[in-house]
């Protein structure tokens, strides 16, 4: 039995700033995962990743990250590593959490 | 005369460039030369040192075996030309020279991305290095 596809978004780090960014629908990058464009199939996911990877002058290390969707179809990361990336370190109030 | 064990030279065409003294030159095969082509797996004891030229292939730029092979060739008194073949980075050029390489063969596409002026700029990095200073001071 085929397993249910887990929705994905594309994330990377910003080349100049180094911080975590997410690929959005207009081929631009956002610092907020809630803006990310969501892939609902594996084909969509690969296509998104390929598109994102073309922007080598902007980003480093794009990859797909599993997400879950809330009722408003907004994506949040599933894996604890990605939750930390979306938030910042736990020992200081630094990183993305300062903007939330 | 080409060495029997060497790989086919068909991939050296106008699509590659030789970097020599910081200048780009077209890669041409000089059939009068007695050339041996080796890669990182070569064992120094099995290399015929009477060749005019030894080409050391770098499968990847990050595979640094060629640097030690070139140095060993020079330590074994090989006096012919040593060429690195592979898309080495500009920043590896001074290292290659310091190990005993004379020239580097890179692809045309690589040469377009890392143009001649960049190779010339890094040439000065062969001066003022720690190892020379330790051994000669």
């Amino acid at each position, binding site marked *: 039995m085929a397993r249910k596809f887990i929705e994905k978004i594309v994330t990377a*780090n910003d*080349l*100049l*700033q*180094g911080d*975590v960014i997410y690929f959005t629908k207009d081929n631009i990058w956002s610092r907020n995962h809630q803006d990310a464009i969501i892939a609902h199939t594996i084909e969509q996911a690969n296509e998104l990743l390929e598109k994102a990877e073309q922007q*080598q*002058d902007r980003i*480093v*290390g794009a990859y797909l990250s599993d997400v879950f969707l809330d009722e408003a179809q907004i994506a949040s990361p*599933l*894996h*604890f*590593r990605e939750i*930390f*990336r979306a938030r*910042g*370190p*736990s*020992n*200081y109030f*630094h*990183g*993305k959490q300062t903007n939330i | 005369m080409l060495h029997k064990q060497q790989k086919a030279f068909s991939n050296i065409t106008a699509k590659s460039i030789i970097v020599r003294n910081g200048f780009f030159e077209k890669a041409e095969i000089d059939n009068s030369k007695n050339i041996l082509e080796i890669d*990182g797996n070569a064992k120094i004891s099995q290399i015929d040192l009477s060749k005019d030229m030894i080409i050391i292939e770098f499968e990847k*730029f*990050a*595979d*640094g*075996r060629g*640097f*030690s*092979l070139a*140095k*060993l060739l020079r*330590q074994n008194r090989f006096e012919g030309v040593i060429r690195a073949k592979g898309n080495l*980075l*500009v*920043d*590896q050029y*001074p*290292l*290659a020279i*310091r*190990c005993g390489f004379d020239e580097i063969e890179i692809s045309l596409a690589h040469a377009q*991305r*890392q143009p001649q002026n*960049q190779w010339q*700029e*890094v040439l000065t*990095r062969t001066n*003022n*290095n*720690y*190892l020379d*200073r*330790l*051994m*000669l*001071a």
Partner: protein
Amino acid sequence: MYQYNQFDKHFVANRAKQFRSQVMRRLDGSLSEEEFRPLRLMNGLYLQLHAYMLRVAIPYGSLNSKQMHQLAYIANKYDKDYAHFTTRQNIQYNWPKLKDVPDILDDLAKVDMHAIQTSGNCIRNVTSDHFAGASIDEIADPRPSAELLRQYSTDHPQFQFLPRKFKIAISGSPNDRAVIKSHDIGLLMKYDESGNLGYEIYIGGGLGRSPFVGKLLKGFLPKADLLPYIEGIMVVYNLNGRRDNKYKARIKILVHENGIEKIKQEVEENFLIQKQNFKQPSDKLISAINERFKLPDFKQANIDNYKIELKQNAQFSNFIKNNISEHKNKDYSIISVSLKNIGETPGDATSKQMQILANLAKQYSHDELRISHEQNIILPHVHKSDLPKVFKELQKANLATNNIGLISDIIACPGMDYCSLATARSIPIAKQIAKHFNELNLEEEIGQLKLKISGCINACGHHHVGHIGILGLEKQGKESYQITLGGEENLSMNIGKRAGPGFSSDELLPAIKRLIEAYLSLRQNPDESFLASYKRLGEKPFINALYPKEEKANVA
């Protein structure tokens, strides 16, 4: 300590310029990320979870007050006003921007510092005894040899693209504080029977995925042969180390797969070639290096005030008991300043703390500081009459935590709070354990205990050699922690043994509590350390404490 000459200054400034050009070429597309990556790594620049990270070299852990001030200045100007001291005697900034890094390197070069070869598949910053040149038990100062190796390995043309990273450590004391047997090459300074100084050489040690204790490669190498011999090892490794699998690329695997005898033979053969070809550094150059490591002019002063303070001030005497080591000069002491303030991140210091330590070093420690692999800061030459004053200053700066060598003096890597390789967090675990035993006032009671935490199998937190080691992993989408027992550092290095299944982050502290309670009830007397009890009794009672019967039943 070593002072840069014009050559060094020129080299480091040039190297910063080169990095600026590399960044430009990355931005203009001349270099792809794949091509840029090894170049930025060999200049200390990583990309981590939330940001870039710049690792700055502190050669063999030694620096002066001016350099420490500059490190504080950089933390304040380009980062978040703090920095992290690492288990390899370096310092890391967690939040630099790529565009600022060339400026940071320029600022470092101004005080003779750099980030060269603090990462990448090259010979890394050579580490050494943090008490070098100060400790009473040292037979020879390892720093001149470490400095010679720094110069030799810096920008070595053959060895910038090795199969994998390469770490060398050197100790001048039989009480090896540099853990030399956990390095690719470990050097122990010793005298031969005729009284000549040289090195005992170990090879193929390492922690990480496949931990190995370094094996003896050469019983005695005369001092003058150091560079050609190291070159011999490096050539053998560069040509033969595995490049097909990065987890098998370290020299420890080459030694393991070929056997030490085969490697020894190849190294000796290559050493002969190198000896013929290698022009030795001139006596002038060697003595110029040695000159830089002369002992400071120790002062003479009455130490009665110190003796009185010891009797009258319990906090002071507790600090002295734990944080002081014996100096060559009987009127001097070595102070270990703990960066393990309870409840804070192991190894972190604020800019302000760095400045205070720099000032103390300038005024009271002959302008010297050291970073230990245990992530503490050392004031190596403090006259005993100055100890009360220094202690007071440390207290004011929240730097007088008297827990050196105790359970709360935890080594921990940055873990998944920062590191992109990590599989779990280590910092919160370290904080939690330290806080618990501190609150119960049990640290002294437990005594000497080395607890080390790594957030992944790469073992930057040295968990394999902790008396208690903790390894953070991922298990079914959650952080999980494996405990190892009986690891040991120093020349008797021993790899800790995995105790059993991992614990969730909630179960871990209770498990450590059970383990410590078992030790306290099992030890013969309060002087028997955790490790000694473990060695005497074997693992069984400790494993029973970690996995009590009823829990086993639940698991099953």
